């Protein structure tokens, strides 16, 4: 059994930023465990630009952004072990991992940072009829094939879901010589950024079919085509008679991301049904003492900059915990999702909060000329105007300790949107 002060699970941007900030705070006994061959997480395959505008004030590609943190980890000499998969965590922080090199290993950690990222919703969760033919991939898998392995998933492509990964793959596949027939979205609005819709679809004349879905899949061995139908925007049910057949050999799914929390559950960490990630307090500490969570395993982020910022906090707090300097919060207020708000993080804020913190959430729908409000108990403590809120873009709010003074008897904090749904 090896003793480690801070054990970080996952070597993506979250794990890297946590390691760097823990080191800079003074921690020396840190270890990063990563199941893939290299550090960098999902960024290794995101070769498009658009990363790091907040952090570095320039637009980097995924590998470039990751390298900045990898370089720091190397410079500080923070140990990392790749090709190592963590398979168990106990509530008393014993971590089991397997690797080809060392076989089964056990670590006893004073503090653990969960930074395992998320995975894509697969076909199985869609319940579309048809054979289990080849040619159906999640957009991220296709991205891994093209960008890391130099392989081409197919030639005539349809995309289901309009998440950013799907949009970006529409452009990548076009660049690689494939024909992308359409991008099909169930909702009446896209989950992707405007910028990606313009620069990945409009630029190449790829239609975005809103309020449409795939109702049938043809092909036994290999995908031969898919049937697309319009849906009623209210019930989201296909409208009979609107079916259209698209001949294609590839269907890419970009229908959502799920935080990868199997390990967290083993450790006894309480999972929030709203985010599918851990419930945390303002220190990003989970319900298990000394276990922290950050990045996409905590809640799905749209910008890696927010991941790095959040994870840096987890790193510092994990070190404070190891030093016995992290105040225990006996009394916390629950953060409640009000109208239009889903998955606000953190879920608990200490009554003794002494520094400003950030609350993040995703709007439930598209709201124009909206206001985001924070209520402490039944007293409104803050509001922030926004011309538009969409589910594709996370909202960040500052929460300062002064807000708590507005209502000393409050039993909860509510985050809510005031607007008309458009």
């Amino acid at each position: 059994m090896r003793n480690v002060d801070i054990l970080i699970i996952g070597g993506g941007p979250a794990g890297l930023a946590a390691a760097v900030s823990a080191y800079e705070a003074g921690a020396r006994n840190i270890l990063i465990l990563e199941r893939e061959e290299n550090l960098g997480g999902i960024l290794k395959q995101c070769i498009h630009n658009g990363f790091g505008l907040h952090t570095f004030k320039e637009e980097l590609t995924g590998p470039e952004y990751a390298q900045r943190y990898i370089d720091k980890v190397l410079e500080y000499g923070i140990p990392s072990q790749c090709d190592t998969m963590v398979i168990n965590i106990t509530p008393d922080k014993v971590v089991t991992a397997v690797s080809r090199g060392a076989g089964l290993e056990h670590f006893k950690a004073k503090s653990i940072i969960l930074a395992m990222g998320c995975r894509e919703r697969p076909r199985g969760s869609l319940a579309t009829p048809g054979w289990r033919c080849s040619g159906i991939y999640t957009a991220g898998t296709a991205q891994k094939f093209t960008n890391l392995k130099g392989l081409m998933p197919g030639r005539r492509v349809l995309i289901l879901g309009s998440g950013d990964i799907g949009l970006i793959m529409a452009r990548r596949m076009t660049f690689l010589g494939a024909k992308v027939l359409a991008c099909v979205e169930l909702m009446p609005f896209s989950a992707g950024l405007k910028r990606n819709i313009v620069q990945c679809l409009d630029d190449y004349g790829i239609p975005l079919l809103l309020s449409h879905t795939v109702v049938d899949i043809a092909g036994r061995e290999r995908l031969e085509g898919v049937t697309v139908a319009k849906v009623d925007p209210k019930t989201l049910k296909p409208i009979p008679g609107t079916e259209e057949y698209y001949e294609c050999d590839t269907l890419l799914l970009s229908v959502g991301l799920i935080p990868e929390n199997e390990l967290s559950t083993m450790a006894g960490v309480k999972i929030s049904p709203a985010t599918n990630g851990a419930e945390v307090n303002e220190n990003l500490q989970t319900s298990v003492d000394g276990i922290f969570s950050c990045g996409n395993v905590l809640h799905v982020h749209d910008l890696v900059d927010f991941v790095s910022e959040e994870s840096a906090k987890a790193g510092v707090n994990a070190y404070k915990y190891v030093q016995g300097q992290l105040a225990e919060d006996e009394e916390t207020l629950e953060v409640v999702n009000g109208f239009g708000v889903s998955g606000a993080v953190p879920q608990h804020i200490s009554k003794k909060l002494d520094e400003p913190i950030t609350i993040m959430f995703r709007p439930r729908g598209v709201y124009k000329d909206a206001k985001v409000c924070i209520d402490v108990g039944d007293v409104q403590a803050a509001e922030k105007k926004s011309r538009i809120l969409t589910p594709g873009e996370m909202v960040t709010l500052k929460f300062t300790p002064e807000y708590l003074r507005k209502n000393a008897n409050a039993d909860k904090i509510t985050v809510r949107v005031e607007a008309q749904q458009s």
Partner: protein
Amino acid sequence: MIKEITCIGCPMGCRITAEVDGDRILSIEGYTCNIGKKYAQEELTLPTRMVTALMKVYGTTQPLSVKTSRPIEKSKIFDCLKEISRHTVMRPIHIGEVLIKNVCGTPVDIIATKELE
């Protein structure tokens, strides 16, 4: 001629309608702030894009990720991709290394975005 563009300045995604005559912009409507106006003017006169792509590397099937050193004229995207696909590079390669100078006769270079030992 009437041209329609979607502003990417913020999630509002304003629909901007412009009347153009060749290179001349006769009118622009539909933007709600100056970011949109400026964006539309650029898009109507000389639209540019960053291009990211993959390049072959000798001795491996795994590609190298590359990008344009700055945005390139939109009309040259596919020529630029063709030129990139004609190149094969040797390791080691470092981030920022220039792999193609003046791609397609533009002042733009193609540079590496990945470390390859």
